[in-house]
């Protein structure tokens, strides 16, 4: 199979060489992808005096781990991390719970107008967020929610995003219906069918949604920029941006703080790696 696939690139006699060449390119490309992160780690461990040294010292001659301790005390890093978590946890839970419920209805239930509603879900995926940005701000301002986390968290409990609904609905459609028909014959409610039949078979898709959503909310900048006004309530992205303005040239500390901020996402990525690569295939999400 793979030999034939290799043929797409080169004719059979040179197949081995074309494969070696493509292997080389792939490894070189992977190295290029890793390079910025390696540079980030390297910078974060250097004394500030060595940061600007050329040619580049990839392995610092003096390793300075204190950068990390200082980076988290130069700004209230852990406070901001906690704030980020206070936003991320309700958003991820709300997204998973409500998008699962909505997707289940679209995949399994019949009611007048459902097809029409689903067309709206698809349309909502295409809608650029800018169109609703300003009036949403005015709405939350009117509600007195500006300065709280509510504008960031509450929307997640209202369907959890059209994209996630679409993804989960597509996944639920691949689950055979026999079991939930049986459960309905036995008198189970839709809620219990969802929880006992559909959800246990859908963890791959649900973890895609949870992982994507966590990464998205953890890195979100525009939302907190609009709605978080008090410096004590800053999330990590806001804190880092603020830090950049104050300690403009302290690259080692800035890289240390940035790396720490990215760590949860990298962790989630490795935990949900399969889900991630599947999710991108399922959805093409950016």
């Amino acid at each position, binding site marked *: 199979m793979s030999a*034939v696939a290799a043929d*797409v690139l080169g004719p059979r006699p040179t197949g081995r060489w074309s494969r070696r060449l493509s292997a080389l390119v792939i490894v070189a490309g992977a190295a290029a992808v890793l390079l910025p992160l390696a540079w980030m780690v390297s910078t974060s461990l250097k004394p500030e005096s060595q940061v600007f040294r050329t040619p580049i010292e990839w392995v610092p001659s003096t390793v300075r781990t204190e950068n990390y301790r200082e980076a988290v005390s130069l700004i209230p890093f852990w406070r901001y991390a906690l704030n980020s978590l206070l936003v991320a946890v309700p958003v991820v839970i709300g997204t998973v719970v409500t998008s699962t*419920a909505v997707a289940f209805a679209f995949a399994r239930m019949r009611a007048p107008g459902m097809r029409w509603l689903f067309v709206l879900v698809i349309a909502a995926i295409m809608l*650029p967020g800018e169109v609703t940005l300003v*009036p949403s701000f005015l709405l939350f301002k009117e509600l007195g929610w500006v300065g709280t986390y509510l504008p960031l968290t509450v929307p997640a409990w209202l369907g959890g995003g059209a994209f996630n609904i679409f993804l989960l609905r597509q996944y639920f459609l691949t689950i055979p219906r026999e079991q939930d*028909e049986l459960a309905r014959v036995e008198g189970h409610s839709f809620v219990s069918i969802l929880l006992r039949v559909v959800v246990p078979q859908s963890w791959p898709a649900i973890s895609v949604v949870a992982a994507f959503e966590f990464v998205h909310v953890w890195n979100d*900048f525009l939302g907190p920029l609009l709605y978080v006004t008090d410096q004590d309530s800053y999330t990590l992205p806001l804190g880092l941006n603020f830090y950049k303005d104050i300690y403009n040239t302290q690259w080692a500390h800035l890289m240390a703080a940035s790396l720490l901020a990215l760590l949860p*996402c990298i962790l989630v*990525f490795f935990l949900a790696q399969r889900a991630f690569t599947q999710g991108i295939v399922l959805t093409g*999400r950016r």
Partner: protein
Amino acid sequence: MTAANAPVSSEGAGIVGTGPSRRGRRRVPAARRETWAAYGFLSPWVIGFVGLTVGPMVASLVLSFTDYNLVDAGNTSWVGLGNYREALTEDRLVVQSLKVTTYYATLAVALDLFVGLILALLLNTGFRVIGAIRTIYYLPAAVSGVAVSLLWLWIFQPSSGLANALLDLVGLPAIDWVYSTTWVIPAFVLMSLWGVGRSAFIYLAILQRIPTNLYEAAAVDGAGPFTRFRRITLPLVTPAIFLNLVLGIIGNFQTFTQAFVISEGGPANASLFYTLYLYRNAFRYFRVGYAAALAWILFALLLVLTLVAFRSSRRWVYYEAEDLR
């Protein structure tokens, strides 16, 4: 499938209706109960869609015809198409931001489509270490936002950043990157190319579904590698190219965080992305009405681009009917 299930579910509903577990509940026809249950499940999304999408969209449209100001809301008056006229004929920064954004989006999308496809073809040659390699290529997708923008700001530092160090390594002169009106957009494109693994995986998923006997048959017929690529591989990946194209256009036109953190629109507005300019109008100059008009112009533009993409897709996107079943 649905037709075959229909009798089962109505029969099942009969049993449910008379079953002992239904303590004293009035018998409601199953279909009607299903309808209400469905609406119940859908209600969070419907509330959100009406309250946070449709409502704001209508409000945004209405606002775009006014001179609503965030700090002087009492003095709002109706200006008709005034905002649109100003944006499209008087405001040079709108033209500039559209130029910048289109330039960036075109380069970023084109490179993403091209490099992504090449990468997918290479990854599809089926060699061993793909598991680990796959992880590496997809890693940039897990990280984004301010922290990554700061990383690239450091990479693009003219005097001691990684980018110029690499240029120096191959004997090329240093570039001012994000501090140069010429290079700031290419710098952002380079940064976006870092995440090319994403689109490569969409292609890869399709490539791996192409049955090998198609290639075997073509080889028997004397088709060379280039012909096989052009006649088999390329047509079959066009749906993925199309998906990446549409999502790429929509996504790249909304570039904000990188521009805000790295270059703040500069130098000399050379990276004044459209969304950044919209944000400034709304939240720095408090010109909410004007910003709403800008949002609708963007929306109309994206709608037209998407429709053009969909229209043209009939000519170049190949949707397999029975070939691959």
